[in-house]
């Protein structure tokens, strides 16, 4: 047993309102620099929808993540060791600017400098790359709230395995349903981006598992961009280096939640420590699609198990981390309550960001004004849900409906239990029966309710005491060089000749 | 001219014709290898006798050559005695007959006086060194084993490297196959073979 600690996350989708506050917070802190304008380390997508970059889930095109070969071994989908060298010159799987969008601004000066005339002066859109006027055809969130629109949603990769009826139901204008999917880097336990980097610039921090790019080592070969199945690595066209979400490690190291977590209006985000067995990372990912979620759960280690604790201490994991792991909200959501699921586990990178699937649009169908809380019909409602279970299963369980239904059943049972408690309009016996059927006790239900609905900041973000300050480069003050250097570096990060 | 010829002929007959065993004795004791007259002479039994390369079997023309060679008292560019081999001729040409006769009392100086530049057989060991080692200065396949080995190793470095690569790769292949069999056996024993 090789115990490693990982800073892991849970996003509770039931609570996400798609306000993009997280995206804007991140953008303002990290990516408002030349070359990074098009990057959204944190973005929020409307599902069903094509996402950003467009159809990023289409791995036939972008070739991210791992595949399981005939021998049950994991292999990078994007490259082998040798053809990696050939792909330095041209990587067919790499997304280009048009797959994201061409960043633009407006020529605001025109508003002031225009000669007087008959027309109102306008600020025309200009490309932030060429400076030329441009027609805006795509943006970072182009299909926002257009879930049923055939223009965008039909191209959603996750719809491919849905039946005709399910699809029809989804795009029925009267019945439009959608959900939001905020995405940041998953800081995977078996990151394919790290494994693909020819220069060895990408690495996983041993103590907290954050995946970072050493900007001095990066040579811009771009293999990681193709290899990350979530397309959460971006190529800075100006500096010729790759960049990605750093989980705001400078904030973490000073005990603050990352910017996107901190700013989240819906309080959907949870952050905590997970222990996992590094020896099992590869084998856990080398099982069939159906078994992936369970397999990944079983590779996570119980932070209260004395054997695990002993092994953790042997591995030099500090008491602070052990304490954080024992109080971790992520552990409870993912393993204890089995509510949170990894996004696209079939990419086999063992993502460390888990999502609690949304109950609202699922249940929203049956009873117009009120969501389906008929205690007798809790579970039957899944069959004709507004968002098909299969769609959620494609997103969060590699197509395994059972895992998603399990999670939804628990969510529904807890909700019914609280409703029966607060409003008393449900039959308490059948509610308790549903709770039991979902495998929960009333204590569990109370705990889930508390963590979901009323948990304050220190309960949602259990940040381990990371001592990395000395590892930071002695940098210039971000206050001074903001806009050019991001976090800041001792040398201005300028494009080489 | 005529007088000169007469002198040469007279001298030739006045000279003792035998091999210089002093050199042989020195080489044997210095190198520990047995050496015979073929070190310098054409015949392993020395110049006297009627065998091939011995005085008794010389033709008229060869006698003439012999006499001319015997008169080479001072170093001269070319000496071509029929009873001496190339190394013997080289010695006479380099040192001169007079010096050779003097050196009979100091055979250990021959190598130094000859110098270590020449290598008649091209085996990488200078003739003078071969003289000291008691090995054949005219055979590419004969020399002090270690010297010869290093020289040939350098000369064949490429082939040796290729051979090494081939062996290493083959061994790697064999080991892989062995591990493969071991794995299969292991799988077979634990009962989950296909």
């Amino acid at each position, binding site marked *: 047993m090789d115990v490693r600690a990982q800073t892991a996350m849970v996003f509770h989708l039931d609570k996400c309102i798609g306000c993009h506050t997280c995206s804007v917070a991140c953008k303002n802190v990290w990516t408002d620099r030349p070359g990074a304008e098009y990057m959204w380390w944190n973005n929020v997508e409307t599902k069903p929808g094509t996402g950003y970059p467009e159809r990023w889930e289409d791995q036939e095109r972008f070739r991210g993540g791992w595949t399981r070969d005939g021998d049950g071994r994991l292999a990078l989908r994007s490259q082998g060791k040798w053809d990696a060298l050939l792909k330095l010159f041209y990587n067919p799987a790499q997304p280009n600017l048009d797959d994201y969008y061409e960043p633009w601004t407006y020529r605001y000066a025109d508003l002031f400098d225009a000669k007087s005339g008959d027309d109102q002066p306008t600020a025309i859109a200009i490309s932030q790359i060429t400076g030329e006027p441009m027609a805006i055809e795509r943006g970072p969130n182009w299909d926002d709230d257009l879930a049923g629109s055939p223009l965008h949603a039909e191209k959603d990769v996750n719809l491919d395995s849905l039946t005709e009826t399910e699809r029809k139901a989804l795009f029925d204008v009267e019945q439009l349903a959608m959900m939001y999917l905020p995405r940041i880097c998953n800081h995977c336990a078996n990151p394919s981006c*790290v494994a693909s980097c020819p220069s060895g610039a990408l690495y996983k921090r*041993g103590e907290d598992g954050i995946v970072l790019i050493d900007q*001095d080592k990066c040579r811009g070969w*771009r293999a990681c961009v193709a290899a990350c199945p979530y397309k959460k690595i971006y*190529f800075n066209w100006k500096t010729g280096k790759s960049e990605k979400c750093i989980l705001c490690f400078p904030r973490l190291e000073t005990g603050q939640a990352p910017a996107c977590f901190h700013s989240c209006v819906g309080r959907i985000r949870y952050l905590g420590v997970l222990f996992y067995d590094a020896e099992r990372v590869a084998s856990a990912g080398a099982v069939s699609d159906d078994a992936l979620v369970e397999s990944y759960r079983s590779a996570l280690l119980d932070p209260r198990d004395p054997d695990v604790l002993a092994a953790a201490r042997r591995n030099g994991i500090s008491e602070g981390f052990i304490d954080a792991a024992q109080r971790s909200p992520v552990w409870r959501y993912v393993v204890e309550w089995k509510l949170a699921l990894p996004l696209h586990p079939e990419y086999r990178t063992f993502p460390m960001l888990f999502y609690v699937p949304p109950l609202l649009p699922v249940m929203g169908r049956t009873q117009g004004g009120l969501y389906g809380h008929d205690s007798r019909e809790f579970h039957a409602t899944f069959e004709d849900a507004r968002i098909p279970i299969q769609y959620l299963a494609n997103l969060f369980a590699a197509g395994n409906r059972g895992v998603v239904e399990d999670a939804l059943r628990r969510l529904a049972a807890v909700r019914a239990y609280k409703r029966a408690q607060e409003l008393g309009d449900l039959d308490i016996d059948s509610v308790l029966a549903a709770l039991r059927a979902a495998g929960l006790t009333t204590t569990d239900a109370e705990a889930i309710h508390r963590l979901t609905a009323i948990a304050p900041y220190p309960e949602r973000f259990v940040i381990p005491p990371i001592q990395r300050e000395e590892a930071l480069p002695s940098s210039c003050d971000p206050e001074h060089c903001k806009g050019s250097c991001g976090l800041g570096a001792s040398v201005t990060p300028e494009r080489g000749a | 001219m005529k007088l000169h010829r007469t002198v040469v002929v007279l001298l030739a007959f006045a000279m003792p014709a035998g091999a210089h065993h002093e050199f042989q004795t020195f080489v044997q004791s210095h190198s520990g290898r047995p050496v015979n007259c073929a070190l310098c002479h054409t015949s392993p039994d020395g110049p006297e006798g009627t065998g091939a390369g011995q005085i008794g079997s010389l033709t008229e023309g060869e006698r003439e050559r012999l006499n001319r060679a015997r008169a080479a008292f001072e170093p001269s560019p070319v000496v071509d005695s029929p009873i001496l081999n190339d190394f013997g001729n080289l010695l006479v040409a380099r040192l001169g007959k007079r010096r050779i006769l003097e050196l009979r009392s100091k055979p250990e100086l021959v190598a130094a006086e000859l110098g270590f530049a020449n290598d008649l057989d091209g085996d990488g060991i200078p003739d003078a060194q071969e003289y000291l080692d008691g090995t054949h200065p005219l055979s590419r396949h004969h020399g002090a084993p270690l010297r010869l080995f290093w020289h040939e190793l350098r000369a064949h470095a490429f082939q040796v490297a290729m051979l090494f690569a081939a062996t290493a790769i083959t061994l790697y292949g064999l*080991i892989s196959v062995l591990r493969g069999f071991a794995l299969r056996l292991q*799988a077979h024993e634990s009962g989950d073979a296909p």
Partner: protein
Amino acid sequence: MMQSFLLLGLPYVAILGCIAGSIWRFRTRRFSYSALSSQFLEDKSLVLGSMPWHLGIFVVLAGHAAALLFPRVWAGLVASPTFLLSVEAIGLAASALAFVGLSVLLVRRLTNGRVQAVTSVVDLVVLAIFLAQIVLGVLIAVIHPYGAAWSTGTLAPYLWSLLTLRPDASLVIDLPPLVQAHLALAWGIVLLVPFSRLVHVFSVPLAYLWRAPQVVVWSNPRRWSSSVAAATVLPARRLFLRGAAALSVGGALLAAGTAETLGRFFFGPRLSEEQQARLDARKLERLRQTQREKELAVERAAQRYIRIATLSELDARKGRYFIDYEMRPALAFLGEDGLPLLISAKCTHLGCTVASELDAQGRVLCPCHVSFFDIKTGMPNAGAPAKEPLPHLAWVLMDDTQQVVASRGADGRDYGRVDPERAASLSVYIAKREERVS
């Protein structure tokens, strides 16, 4: 002056500049090391430019490196016309490929707005220089063909003279202007490397081929690096495949290495006339010797007497080998009494031939197992491996008229008398049957 600067000064400026510049850039501006790919901004024409260019220039540079760095091996290879022609053809094809790729890249840089946004002056200089260099190279290959062969005697020694700090421009000073321009431009490119995007050639990520898939960095120096293996088991099939591949590569290497030697072995010796003559002489000599042996045998079968030597030819200290009637070696000395002394030379121990020279005690040595035989008595020394004495042989002395003058029997008894004045003219014979003269 200009020429010698370009050929001797510029190389050192370029090499030193390249080294110093690279160190400076790596130490102070490490962030600027990047391939600076523009695929992200434009990828449709890039694939038509970058792939041909990189593959072509790689082949061309590999050829240049092989010829210039290992000129002797290379010279041996291009001695074969087939190889030379193939190399020239491959080189030209690769240059053409590189030229096409470079042209596409240049056009793309000049026309695409997005790419222009990340194009610096240096980028354009690099492209232009390379284009010029390739054109020069192709022209050389066409106008002065077989550069793969002639460069080994000119450019390679020149390069080595520079590298070994014994610069010698005489090797290239007389080469055509095209070649000299190509050379000078090459040094220019070397100088340009650290100050342009060309630095990316220093970061070819070969280490990727054997590093572990995952990279983990610890702030705790004890565990500064370790890896999570993505591949846990190597299944048997993979091992077999790998083994088979390695075995065939090893076998192929071995076969390739030995094929030529083996072929030439069975091809037979190809001797020069001189070597053939020497070999023939050697065989002839052996044949003569065999003939002589046979003649000796015939002579001994037919003749009653066999002549050994004249009495005057015999020496008291050094024996003369001859072959007796049984075809065994024997020695003839001049005895103290002025008469011949004939003694068998076949050691009575194990039959080696004894040496012919006497030692101080008047003995001959059998070198095989160190028996000393006294020639007067024939007895071996005490303690010698040989126990039996060497037998003496009978002889007769005859004068010019074949008249027997004197003889000695096998029993050692002498018959007849020798007149000392006539002794010089007498010849020593051995006889088939014992002769006694009174």
